[in-house]
């Protein structure tokens, strides 16, 4: 779906309100073109066409099994590791198809990081969790690594809570802290896009609120795409929302429009709980 059309519509509806006008810096960072995906014989994504804007948060919502996790995993080729998975069409990152045979998947995943539902810190110290990525990339300077740790933890809103215990095991942290550590770990290799697959599903409301605040902050530096079952969360944190159903992208638009006046009946029925 054409994001420029959505933005132009916003521009027209806000004529005269300069603060709402589309910025010239708005640009497309990721784009799905005729994306189809099968697990064995089951088609999980059906002809997805979607443009995602840089430095914005996009939420993907839909009922279980609609393909939202599959879609988000297709943005950094995480589906490649699933046996029997086959993809057609493309995902363009900075206008280059990441499904090209020449694409270096490791490079793609460096630029497009991912956070999962359950925090998965490595069983090592907080410090080592953060330095793991940069070290694999060849960074050896201890001072530089320390700077990266402080920078990443500060950006993930975790520094103040762990700065005096960086050598403690990451597994001693609470669930919410572990999730923010995973985010800090992803930030350490400076990705351009952060994919989040239900990042707060296993967290309590306070830890959830911290992650949401963090997402709000992160979009200043990167693009965030977040799958969530929590529609209120999608409404709070995202600029744009995609609604998916049975592998199809049903509606895509600005979050306020999707949740206040959806255009499609299916979207309306889903977000108002009138399904089934």
């Amino acid at each position: 779906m054409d994001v420029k059309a959505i933005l132009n519509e916003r521009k027209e509806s806000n004529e005269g309100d300069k603060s709402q006008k589309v910025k010239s810096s708005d640009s497309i960072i990721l784009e799905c073109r005729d994306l189809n995906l099968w697990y064995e014989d089951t088609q999980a994504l059906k002809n997805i066409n979607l443009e995602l804007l840089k430095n914005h948060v996009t939420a993907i919502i839909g009922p279980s099994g609609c393909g939202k996790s599959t879609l988000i995993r297709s943005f950094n080729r995480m589906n490649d590791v699933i046996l029997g998975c086959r993809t057609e069409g493309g995902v363009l990152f900075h206008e280059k198809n990441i499904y090209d045979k020449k694409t270096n998947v490791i490079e793609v995943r460096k630029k497009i990081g991912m956070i999962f539902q359950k925090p998965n810190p490595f069983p090592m110290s907080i410090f080592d969790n953060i330095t793991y990525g940069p070290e694999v990339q060849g960074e050896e300077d201890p001072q530089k690594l320390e700077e990266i740790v402080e920078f990443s933890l500060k950006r993930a809103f975790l520094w103040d809570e762990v700065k005096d215990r960086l050598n403690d095991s990451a597994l001693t942290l609470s669930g919410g802290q572990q999730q923010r550590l995973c985010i800090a770990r992803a930030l350490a290799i400076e990705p351009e896009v952060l994919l989040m697959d239900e990042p707060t599903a296993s967290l309590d409301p306070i830890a959830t609120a911290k992650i949401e605040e963090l997402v709000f902050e992160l979009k200043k530096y990167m693009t965030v795409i977040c799958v969530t079952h929590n529609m209120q969360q999608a409404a709070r944190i995202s600029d744009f929302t995609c609604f998916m159903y049975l592998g199809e992208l049903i509606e895509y638009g600005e979050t306020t429009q999707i949740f206040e006046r959806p255009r499609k009946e299916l979207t309306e029925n889903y977000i108002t709980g009138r399904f089934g």
Partner: protein
Amino acid sequence: MAKELHKEILELKENVVRMGHLSLDMLDKSMKALKAKDPNLANEIIQKKDLIRQLDSEIEAKALRLIALYQPMAIDLRRLATILKVITYLARLGRYGKDIASAVDELSDKPYPAPFVNLEHMWEHIKKMISNALKSFTEADLKYIQDIGSRDDEVDEMRWSIFRECITYMIEDPKTITSCAFFAMIARFLERCGDNACKIAEKVHYMVTGEHIEIT
């Protein structure tokens, strides 16, 4: 849980309609009491103002509770947002009914100018506007309020016409000054009732389409 929310919104909607009919009835009876100089009827209307206030508070509290409990979206959110605004307009209509009824006591021993000016005609016009706005809300159908803006323009003209008429009567017969001054004021009340009907129509339009409009 969604079913429970929808059931509660339906009940809330019924209460709004009840409040709407009560406000309309207060206005209608106040105009009858005014014409007939009937203090008993006027008193009956004045007593109802507490009921309007009570309904206003109850509906508001329930709507806010539903928002807090269910965090509704799309049409559910628009319905509740509309209800919260519409009850304010309905409470104002009821209050104008009470204000008109209060004038009856003041006018009981004052002579009216020969005809009951055009207030009655103006009220019939506005009554239809309010009824249509309420029907539009009940049925979520915009057809009843399509021309409400132009109907309100007519109301505005009627108000000035009554104002000029009252001045003429006052000049002709100073004994009618009190009643005519009240009539000019009541014409202004009724004109504001027309504006409130338009405000309800604006919110119903938002409820149905999700778009905000201004009826001028």
